[in-house]
């Protein structure tokens, strides 16, 4: 069968040829080789300079994330974490299955695997967002300037819902990375891997924000505006549908303080939305209205607040929030006395806790209390979407490497 190749250049090619090329033994590439780092830095520059890309804040964030200085920092981090008695090597061929609707994940996923010296096959959905097509174009442009072995080390392809291609690539790869939710994971898992190969899965996740009511009260108007802007980025960049975007906002503190903080917080968000003249399509408003009604009937909702772009459903207690979400700016709000009250109500599905006003010791204690059963990430409000090598409980740099243990005789 023919597959559509999007990177290194636009063409169609027989599936067997693509798999054969990817599986061919290539000269090994060291993790963080200069050539790879240079290429990634150049790709970052290409994104920064592009007119069309500048319209998408998430592309600027991506370019910033893979700028030269950051890559050099990452290399130093990688070297520090590699024990002296081991030699790190790439795993080989990484097969990435990114989500259809978050335009930038496929680049982050590829980047960490490429930096560690792996070859990559990335399967793109045919229904991609415009920003993804911009990235593919810029990728091709950067590759045209790069060394041929760089160009050969990654293939981005698209083939609709064809089992045959997924099966062939799964058998050929050393690591399979599945983004995109429970159903995708379940479907892709029916395609077997080689015995030695491993898999990283990123199933459906949900995230929340926690605000310290007392510290929030201490903020002046400018501070509240700033926080609202950061929260806006977390929630609205991907229509609140990114797994790390907050759906629940928890105000921690005594009843009166929490009520005041909550009211001021949502007012500040409304102002921020007004200022940005943020406007969702009509269908989103309708979806949020239907979802609100369903939530009122199924959950302990005590209050409904509708600013058209931000619907807030105040809950009496947490723990029964549904798996599905309307997206588009609908939040559950709740009060807790203390962050520890989250421990019994969160579970393995909860990924990111964005926080404001808590100190490091408190957050670390909370992480220990979760004990790996919930929350893989705690970052300040504003950084929910900032990608990191630590994601969903994995250290991706580590996951993309093999470590040869090498003990020297006395």
């Amino acid at each position, binding site marked *: 069968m023919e597959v559509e190749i999007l990177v290194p250049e636009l063409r169609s090619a027989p599936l067997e040829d693509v798999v054969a090329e990817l599986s061919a033994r290539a000269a090994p590439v060291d993790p963080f080789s200069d050539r790879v780092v240079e290429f990634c830095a150049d790709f970052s520059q290409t994104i920064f300079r592009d007119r069309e890309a500048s319209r998408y804040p998430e592309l600027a964030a991506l370019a910033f994330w893979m700028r030269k200085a950051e890559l050099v920092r990452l290399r130093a981090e990688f070297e520090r974490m590699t024990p002296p008695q081991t030699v790190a090597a790439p795993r080989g061929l990484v097969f990435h299955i990114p*989500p*259809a*609707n*978050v*335009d930038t*994940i496929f680049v982050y996923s590829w980047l960490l695997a490429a930096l560690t010296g792996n070859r990559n096959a990335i399967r793109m959905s045919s229904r991609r*967002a415009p920003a993804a097509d911009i990235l593919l174009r810029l990728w091709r442009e950067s590759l045209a300037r790069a060394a041929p072995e760089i160009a050969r080390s990654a293939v981005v392809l698209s083939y609709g819902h064809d089992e045959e291609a997924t099966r062939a690539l799964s058998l050929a790869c050393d690591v399979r990375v599945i*983004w*995109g*939710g*429970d*159903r*995708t994971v379940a479907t892709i898992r029916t395609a077997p891997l080689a015995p030695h190969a491993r898999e990283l899965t*990123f199933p*459906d*996740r949900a995230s929340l924000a926690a605000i310290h009511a007392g510290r929030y009260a201490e903020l002046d108007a400018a501070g509240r505006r700033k926080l609202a802007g950061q929260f806006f980025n977390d929630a609205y960049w*991907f*229509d*609140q*549908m*990114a*797994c790390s975007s907050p759906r629940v906002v928890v105000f921690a503190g005594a009843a009166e303080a929490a009520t005041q903080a909550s009211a001021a917080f949502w007012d500040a968000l409304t102002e921020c939305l007004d200022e940005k003249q943020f*406007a*969702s*399509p*009509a*269908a*989103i*408003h*309708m*979806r949020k*209205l*239907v*979802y*609100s*009604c*369903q*939530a*009122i*009937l*199924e*959950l302990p*909702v*005590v*209050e*409904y607040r509708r600013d*058209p772009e931000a619907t807030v459903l105040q809950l009496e207690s947490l723990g029964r929030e*549904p*798996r*599905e*979400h*309307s*997206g*588009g700016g609908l939040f559950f709000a709740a009060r807790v006395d203390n962050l520890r009250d989250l421990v019994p109500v969160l579970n393995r599905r909860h990924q990111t806790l964005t926080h404001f006003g808590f100190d490091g010791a408190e957050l670390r204690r909370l992480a220990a209390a979760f004990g790996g059963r919930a929350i893989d990430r705690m970052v300040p409000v504003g950084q929910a979407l900032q990608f990191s090598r630590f994601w969903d409980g994995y250290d991706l740099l580590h996951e993309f490497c093999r470590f040869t243990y090498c003990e020297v005789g006395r």
Partner: protein
Amino acid sequence: MTVAELLQAAPYSIPQAEKEAILVEQLGALTEHHRRECAEYDRLVRILYGGSGPAARLADIPFLPVGLFKSHALRSIPESAIFKTLRSSGTTGQEPSQIVLDRETAQRQTLALSRIMTHVLGARRLPMLLIETPSLIKDRRQISARAAGLLGMMNFGRDHAYALNDAMELDGDAVRGFLERFGGQPFLMFGFTFVAWQYFLMKLAGQKVDLSNGTLIHSGGWKKLQEQAVSPQELRRRFLAETGLARIYNFYGMVEQVGSVFLEGEDGYLYPPAFADVIVRDPVTLEELPHGQTGILQVLSVLPTSYPGHSLLTEDLGVVRAVDSPACGRFGKAFSTLGRLPRAELRGCSDVIAASARI
């Protein structure tokens, strides 16, 4: 005026201001009725609206989004009083709405439809050509919304004949046979808009079939015809040119609201009957829009007592064109529908299709 009197009144005879005064009172009473009889509805009104007081204007009557009935079959009657449950056809992949009727609401629905149809058809049953395939209603246990619509309309005709065969092809012999018997006198035709265009008119074109004594009633939305760039005007023009048919009435209605049967007037606009009305709302603020502006249609009807569906926000776009301008002898609002709200693709990591998100 009581609900019974509203149903007996000539459907388009009440000037808007007078009609609104009656509806505000009746619909307000229905809000209280459903709050008493349906705990879920009461909870929704308390939380979404902070309760309900006496409404001053029609726009003050609380409304629910029609999509809620896909996940929740709300009812204001005990289970033992359920007479039948209606299911919407729904778009592919979506759950159908479930509407619970008791005997009284079902009877009023039949009466309401009849009041409206006799307004254009007269009191006598006419010979009826169904622009449908007979297989649609062969299995009476599994009735789709389309079949239910057809069965409801069949009551207004006699000597029924089907214009299409089981394969949805034009049954030329049946049509000719029907017209030979009844074509010289007034007769009735009914079909879904797209079917009437695609499987009937397009196949009849150029065959010199005379439908000039007929009245066509059609319904079901313009979505598929919009895709082919066929406007309501074009449909009328082509029927007239090809068959001499001039009496064409579209109607807009939905399973979710008993009594909301909005029939087209001779001017091509839709008219709410005495016991129902429409409001156009801004899709973002949900405030009522001035006449002439396009927004989301809210439909109101005093007939649903068995379930809290007397005031529903649809997902259809519409615009009020005129009020009390009896160019075709009708009082009240004259409005047009402009199709469904365009669907919105959300982004996100998950493969859960957000459009189907429900709890």
